[in-house]
């Protein structure tokens, strides 16, 4: 199904930068440790003195949050120490990205707190700062204006979610994110994909994008005339299309449902009455368990809603259930879905009779504690009234099946207030100059430049960029060793990682490669040295000129003669024997040459 003609799409692209954390000295990566703590969060007034609707909403859920400590977290992530000054590398990266799209950089950057009390930030807020305003992104004939470029902290990763306890880990918390928000200038998923790709490409050219599946995350803003829906957490670009189509379909059916209900005369206030007595002899496990646990059954007429709750593409039932799920009320049952859950048609009709349902009416039934009845009622009414007013604006979450689920109302501006622990940051001219020098070029230009400068193929250059290894490469390669270094990074290291099932820190690998460079040792020496390190040798032992020196043809010949190596066996065997002697690095090409000479001798 194509998207409607009045579709407007905007993007918020979040990219993790691999420069350590934003407000402390922790590294980008760290294992989870066997230690945790728990917290509760309370909503507070924003700057204008009012609480934000989305934060009030979270507080009404009253949940406990558990945080698993990671090796790359400290007191700052645990909200036990105020933040340190902003990471200059992260700020510089945000400036370079702003310059790439002609966005105007603010002379002073103010760090704000965005209140988020779903537990994803230990402090109850996300630190975020506006770095640049304006500019535009062009990609394949599509142009999108930029509304803002922000530098913010990433949130905790959710590990587990139960009714009243949500578990998060601290490893991701505080990683710097560059957030680029566009105007709603895109009309189709393809246009959105083109723009998102261009943003991601520039970030890869900058060379600081963190490795990992969730290093780029998109929120997609979508509207087709019923208000803006913010879809959170679209991790794959390829899924944008399907997600938006599903969302357009959902809104279309919802609008149809509203029309039907209104034509029938609209809706009246809900009146929940207890109907537990009707289910005294019920065989439904859900009912039996609910009653056993002290819950009661309430039902209310839902006038004029029959046929739009769960028929064809109509899903008003799910809209109500999703809103209730957010306040931890599960299992709302409506007329249309029965018989189900062990409840019979006879039971349905008993409730219908008691509520005096007319032909077009539906009902809602809840098995809940009487304490939560009022909360459930106001949640359902709020949801229905908003839908009937054809205002579908809200925050939704993207799901793995490319559908979306209601998350919370859209957040307003009153959840932002200044971070009082960090003074306003003045962008210094040296920082701006150095950011300007590193402004990322378009990907194709950059690839061509790298390929030319280092004498490597375009494909090798692309691999270095897309695998986030370009900074590593340019930090060590020159026009002479470019080919060898790109081979080591693109091939040797991934092979070694796979063979030894572990990764070695780049700093250590770099030291090995630099040692080889300084001593004019070539590819085979580098591979040998790296092999030694991976197999557990100490650096001091591996970086030994005697072990790593390349043997000349003459030296190889002498070794073959001294150790009576049979030159008539295959080359792999000969190489193995020569390598086992540990006399130096053997270039297989030289051995092949010797073999050839030997063969020729034989044939003479």
């Amino acid at each position, binding site marked *: 199904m194509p998207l409607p003609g009045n579709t407007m799409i905007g993007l918020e692209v979040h990219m993790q930068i691999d420069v350590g954390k934003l407000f402390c000295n922790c590294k980008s990566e760290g294992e989870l440790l066997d230690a945790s703590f728990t917290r509760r969060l*309370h909503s507070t007034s924003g700057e204008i003195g009012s609480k934000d609707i989305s934060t009030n909403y979270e507080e009404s859920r009253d949940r406990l949050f558990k945080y698993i400590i990671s090796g790359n977290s400290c007191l700052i992530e645990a*909200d036990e120490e105020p933040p340190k000054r902003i990471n200059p590398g992260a700020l510089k990266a945000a400036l370079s990205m702003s310059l790439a799209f002609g966005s105007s950089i*603010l002379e002073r950057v*103010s760090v704000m707190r965005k209140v988020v009390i779903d537990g994803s930030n230990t402090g109850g*807020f996300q630190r975020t700062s506006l770095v640049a305003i304006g500019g535009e992104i062009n990609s394949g004939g599509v142009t999108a204006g930029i509304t803002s470029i922000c530098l913010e902290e990433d949130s905790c990763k959710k590990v587990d979610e139960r009714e009243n306890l949500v578990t998060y880990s601290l490893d991701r918390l505080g990683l710097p994110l560059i957030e680029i928000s566009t105007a709603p200038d895109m009309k189709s998923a393809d246009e959105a994909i083109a723009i998102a790709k261009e943003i991601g490409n520039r970030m890869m050219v900058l060379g600081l994008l963190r490795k990992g599946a969730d290093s780029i995350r998109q929120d997609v803003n979508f509207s087709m005339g019923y208000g803006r829906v913010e879809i959170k957490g679209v991790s794959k670009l390829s899924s944008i299309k399907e997600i938006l189509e599903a969302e357009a379909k959902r809104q279309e059916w919802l609008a149809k449902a509203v029309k039907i209900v209104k034509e029938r005369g609209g809706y009246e206030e809900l009146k929940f009455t207890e109907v537990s007595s009707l289910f005294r002899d019920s065989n439904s496990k859900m009912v039996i368990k609910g009653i056993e646990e002290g819950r009661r059954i309430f039902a209310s007429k839902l006038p004029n809603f029959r046929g739009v709750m769960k028929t064809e593409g109509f899903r008003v039932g799910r809209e109500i259930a999703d809103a209730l799920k957010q306040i931890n009320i599960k299992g709302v049952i409506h007329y249309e879905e029965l018989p189900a859950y062990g409840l019979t048609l006879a039971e349905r009709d008993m409730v219908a009779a008691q509520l005096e349902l007319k032909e077009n009416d539906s009902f809602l039934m809840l098995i809940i504690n009487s304490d939560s009845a009022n909360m459930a009622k106001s949640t359902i009414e709020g949801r229905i009234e908003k839908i009937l007013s054809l205002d579908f604006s809200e925050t939704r979450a993207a799901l793995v099946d490319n559908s979306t689920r209601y998350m919370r109302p859209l957040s307003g*501006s009153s*959840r*932002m*207030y200044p971070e*009082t622990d960090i003074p306003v940051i003045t962008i210094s001219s040296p920082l701006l100059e150095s950011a300007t020098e590193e402004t990322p070029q378009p990907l194709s230009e950059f690839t061509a430049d790298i390929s030319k400068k280092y004498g490597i193929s375009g494909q090798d250059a692309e691999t270095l960029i897309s695998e986030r290894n370009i900074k590593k490469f340019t930090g060590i390669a020159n026009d002479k060793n470019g080919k060898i270094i790109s081979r080591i990074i693109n091939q040797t290291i991934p092979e070694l990682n796979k063979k030894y099932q572990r990764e070695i820190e780049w700093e250590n690998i770099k030291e090995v490669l630099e040692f080889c460079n300084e001593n004019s040792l070539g590819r085979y020496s580098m591979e040998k040295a790296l092999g030694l390190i991976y197999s557990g040798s100490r650096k001091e032992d591996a970086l030994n000129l005697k072990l790593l020196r390349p043997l000349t043809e003459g030296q190889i010949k002498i070794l073959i003669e001294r150790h009576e190596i049979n030159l008539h066996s295959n080359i792999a065997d000969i190489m193995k024997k020569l390598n086992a002697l540990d006399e130096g690095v053997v270039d297989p090409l030289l051995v092949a040459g010797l073999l050839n000479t030997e063969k020729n001798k034989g044939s003479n």
Partner: protein
Amino acid sequence: MPESNKPENGDIIKFTWKGKEMEGTFISIDSDFFNVKLENGYNISIKPQSFEIIKKGVSFAVNEGKGAKVSGKGKPISLITTGGTIVSKVDYRTGAVFPSLDIEELTSRFRYMEQNYRLKRVDFSNILSENIEPGQWVEIAKKTEHELRNSEGVVISHGTDTMSYTASALAFMFEKQMGPVILVGSQRSSDRPSSDSYLNLEAAVGFATSEFGEVGISMHHNSSDERIDLIRGTRSRKMHSTRRDAFKSIGEHPVGAFQDGLFSLSGKYRRKCRENVLKTKLEKEVSLVYFHPGLEVEDLEKSMDGKKGMVIMGTGLGHINTKYLQSISERVKGGMKAVATTQCIYGSTNLDIYSTGREMEKAGIISAGNILPETAYVKMMHLLGNYSEEEFEVLMKTNMRGEILEREELGVYL
């Protein structure tokens, strides 16, 4: 800029910056930089090319001291506010944190609190605790005594930096008390959703209804929002600059704990009495000196000039460089009291073990045993203010308010 044209806090302004026309709420001006809140909630700090006020706005007035003074329907508890992080709100104009506490916000948060307590807020002052002087301890004590007569217990909100000093001072001043006196602070200000103030206060109010007839501190047991410790004031110490569990009960288990809305007391404590006996005299001419290598005799001399007493924090067992002993001995002969404590914080002084210690005793220095240095300082002020010179040494070594540990258990250390 002409004064009349100057935007005021809260005004909606339209302005041009780098050729872009924008709109926002004016907050403040700081050396030509306008601080403006944009519609999306972000604050920006820019030098506008031009601007105009399009709507006079309502100032972001800060609701200082707002809210009811009395709230709830249960047992009467008085809450004396003295400032500090626990009652902090943000002043959005300056970004500074200032004291403010709305008790309704506290009681309305937990339904049971409204049912169980009748909280009365008594505003004492809005001072940061580093600015509190011994004279104010006396004022707080008098106010507390007054409130104890009309309530089950008194909770005092206090900045954490000198909270242990105030707690010790109140402990010594109250020879007898009609109800618990609980000091409570917070390490994360209450403008943050993650503030520890809510739970610390909830627990403090709980402890204030107990039989505890002493002065205690109600703060987090560990980093989790789970358990709050009741720490005896004279054994309390702030051991971390920023953590929630900064306050530790030194050398003994906390007297009580609060969890899931319920408190329990377990340690030894004095029960509340039928009357208050308050001794508010404090000798202010007392110094607290931290010994360190390189401390010159002249520097120490200056710390003793005009003083009636000195607490010196010695190393290990309480030792100090013997080169000071002659001048200390002369001062002691002249009537000054000298007491040695240990910088180790944990453990006791003992001047019997090494020759240095014995020489210190000969010079007239009194060993404080395991009294904490800050507590010894306050105790000295109290003793010199209320008792005769002859009684000093005996009382210093007498356990008056739980400040001395009769025995130290192996398991109570860090």
